[in-house]
């Protein structure tokens, strides 16, 4: 991808083919996305069975390493691994910072000693998954690194959109809110570009990053033409007094909050969670039939199953592969 990393790759002794990771949407091709979504659909079909567990990844070890609090992402990764019959090990480092106590590198080396097949990592700092990829032999799945990337969120959102609209290309999504601090937005923007979804960013000027190269406006009326309004969480923890990204959450809600009045009838709304009701999203919107929030959570499970399967097997899960797994 870049000269510095290429040189290091060249220095590696010849050995097995490079490990597959999911670190960033930027590393994916359109074909990768299609394959992953197709695999997720196959798994979704199996979720209708009475017995939901598949033996596909039996005997594999999947470590969930979470340095940030998480409900959706950590539970769905854990459940995804269990549905695929993998052994799981979940490590949470509540409120930990890397420079206090054990360093991330040492933690990764320690876990690496168990020879995990996959390490799923969430970390508050950009580049943490890359570091773990460099020091362990596991396949790495980025479950969110700082403000950088959250690739499985973008994939599950694509899956949700495809289920809802039956297509991706040509859709128009308005992403509203704190784009500056949002790893979800960064992954989504790249994913939308890959599949041909038009994207408009809407938010307060200080929360729209400069030079992102995407259509952006501070005018909330710009959501009108969008098929979907994708609402980002206002990250209260970043809105400390004195930061002045916006004068107040109250003013933010009044100016950019998504209310029923600002939406067209039937206009769909998505939110990656957790929601701040009454700030970025009106409770009436959050609870309306046009909100796809629960569908997003359901998509999260099958998409993460697909991601775990994909990094370990490197191919689409065909009928035959599933059948073989069933037999095994």
């Amino acid at each position, binding site marked *: 991808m870049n000269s510095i990393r290429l040189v290091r790759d060249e*220095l590696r002794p010849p050995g097995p083919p490079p490990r597959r990771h999911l670190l960033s949407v*930027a590393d994916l091709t359109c074909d990768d996305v299609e394959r992953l979504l197709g695999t997720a659909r196959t798994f979704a079909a199996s979720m209708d069975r009475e017995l939901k567990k598949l033996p596909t990844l039996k005997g594999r070890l999947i470590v969930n390493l979470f340095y940030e609090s998480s409900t959706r992402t950590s539970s769905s990764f854990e459940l995804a691994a269990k549905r695929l019959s993998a052994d799981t090990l979940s490590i949470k480092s509540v409120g930990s910072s*890397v420079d206090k106590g054990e360093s991330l590198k040492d933690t990764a080396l320690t876990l690496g000693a168990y020879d995990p097949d996959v390490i799923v990592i969430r970390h508050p*700092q*950009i580049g943490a998954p890359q*570091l773990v990829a460099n020091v362990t032999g596991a396949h790495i799945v980025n479950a969110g690194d700082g403000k*950088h990337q959250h690739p499985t969120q973008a994939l599950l959102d694509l899956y949700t959109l495809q289920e809802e609209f039956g297509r991706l290309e040509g859709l128009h999504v308005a992403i509203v809110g704190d784009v500056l*601090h949002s790893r979800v937005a960064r992954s989504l923007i790249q994913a939308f570009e890959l599949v041909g979804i038009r994207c408009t960013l809407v938010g307060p000027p200080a929360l729209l*990053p400069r030079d992102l190269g995407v259509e952006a406006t501070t005018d909330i009326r710009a959501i009108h033409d969008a098929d979907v309004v994708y609402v980002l969480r206002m990250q209260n923890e970043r809105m400390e007094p004195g930061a002045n990204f916006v004068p107040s959450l109250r003013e933010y809600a009044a100016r950019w909050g998504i209310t029923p009045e600002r939406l067209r009838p039937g206009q769909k709304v998505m939110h990656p969670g957790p929601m701040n009701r009454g700030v970025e999203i009106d409770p009436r919107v959050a609870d309306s039939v046009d909100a796809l929030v629960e569908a997003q959570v359901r998509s999260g499970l099958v998409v993460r199953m697909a991601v775990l399967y994909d990094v370990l097997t490197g191919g689409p899960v065909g009928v035959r592969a599933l059948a073989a797994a069933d037999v095994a």
Partner: protein
Amino acid sequence: MLFGRERPGENVVLRGARVVDPAEGIDATLDVRIDDGVITAVAQQVDAGDHRVVDATALVLAPAFVDPHVHLRTPGREDEETIASGTAAAAAGGFCAILAMPNTDPVVDSAAILGALIETARSEAEVPVGFLAAITRGQRGTELTEMAELADAGAIAFSDDGVPVASAGLMRRALQYASVTGRLLALHCEETSLSHGSHVHEGAVAAELGFTGYPSVAESVMVERDLALAAYEDQPLHLLHLSAAESVAALRRARDAGVRASGEVTPHHLVLTDEAVRSLDPNVKMNPPLRAERDRVALLDALRDGTIEAIATDHAPHARHEKDAPFEAAPFGVTGLETAFAVLYTRLVRPGLLPLETLLDRMSTGPARIFGIDRPRVAVGATANLVLLDLDGEWRVREEAFRSRSTNSWLLGETLSGGVVLTIAAGATAFERLSVAHA
């Protein structure tokens, strides 16, 4: 104002090198004879007598380099660098003199600390070192250090490098007092309320990767402020590690208006842009950050036209375990002493973007002039401060080969040309790798 280990003067004849000394107007194949550390002959076919003869055919002999900006991490972080290791690295990079920044632990803000450093340099420095002292006590930005006493004790200049002098009022007082000490102020220009919490240049790459940006204007507003104060007080100043096009433009305007201002630029800012940050390699994390292509081009233009007179490595060693961290958690800074000439030769001179003479001038004469150091030169009667360069030979940047105690180089694994074969500093051989020349 430079302090190093006493060593016997070299007696040698360097035969058949292409001697390039832009300031002396020399570019010719010549022999150079050195007696007891002093150049005694520069001519064709010099008589060697019983001196050692070095066959320098196909090599370039030039005035050795002067690095105005090095972090020797001593006192406080001797695990990262010592005066001995840092000066050995300097010698391996072709430097005959380096200037050390005072942001150590403790900060060099008293004559006692400075005196101890000078003593250490006298016993272990492989090339002479000049020490800068802090502008403010503890670099806290509130009270001036006793600058006159520090100057008498041997401080070559003053700097709070690593942090800016935030208060304009205090900056003015420092400039006023510089007329008493006769020493230059070397300034780290950063408006921290604009760069707070940042890790990389504010631009397309930061936007895409999610980094808090350090905008160019955070540097240039401080550059403009300090140039305005220098003009008002009619005092000279030196701008450290310039990175932004707007800063360069401000420096050019001030110089044109007669302000005695000088500037320096690092090899990494001349060669890389923020695109390199996509690797998330902590070895491309430094302050000021790598900026956009337009900034890089502006810096290179300023280096060519002389607006920027000096190249500085800003050699900043860091312990491996501190750099082996996620990009955001890693400390700022990269090493550079041992690769500076080679990378600039390989990436700028070879492709025709910078004349060799300009590079040699900005790495030697330029910084020496700014800081009032005797200019290294190829001339009869001058103390030998010379570097022998193998422009064509290729070498690979390897961790194991560094003399520095730290290996946080952005060039690890790269192949460069322009290797240093021999460094003579203050008349004595400080580094020698003659076998490479004919490998």
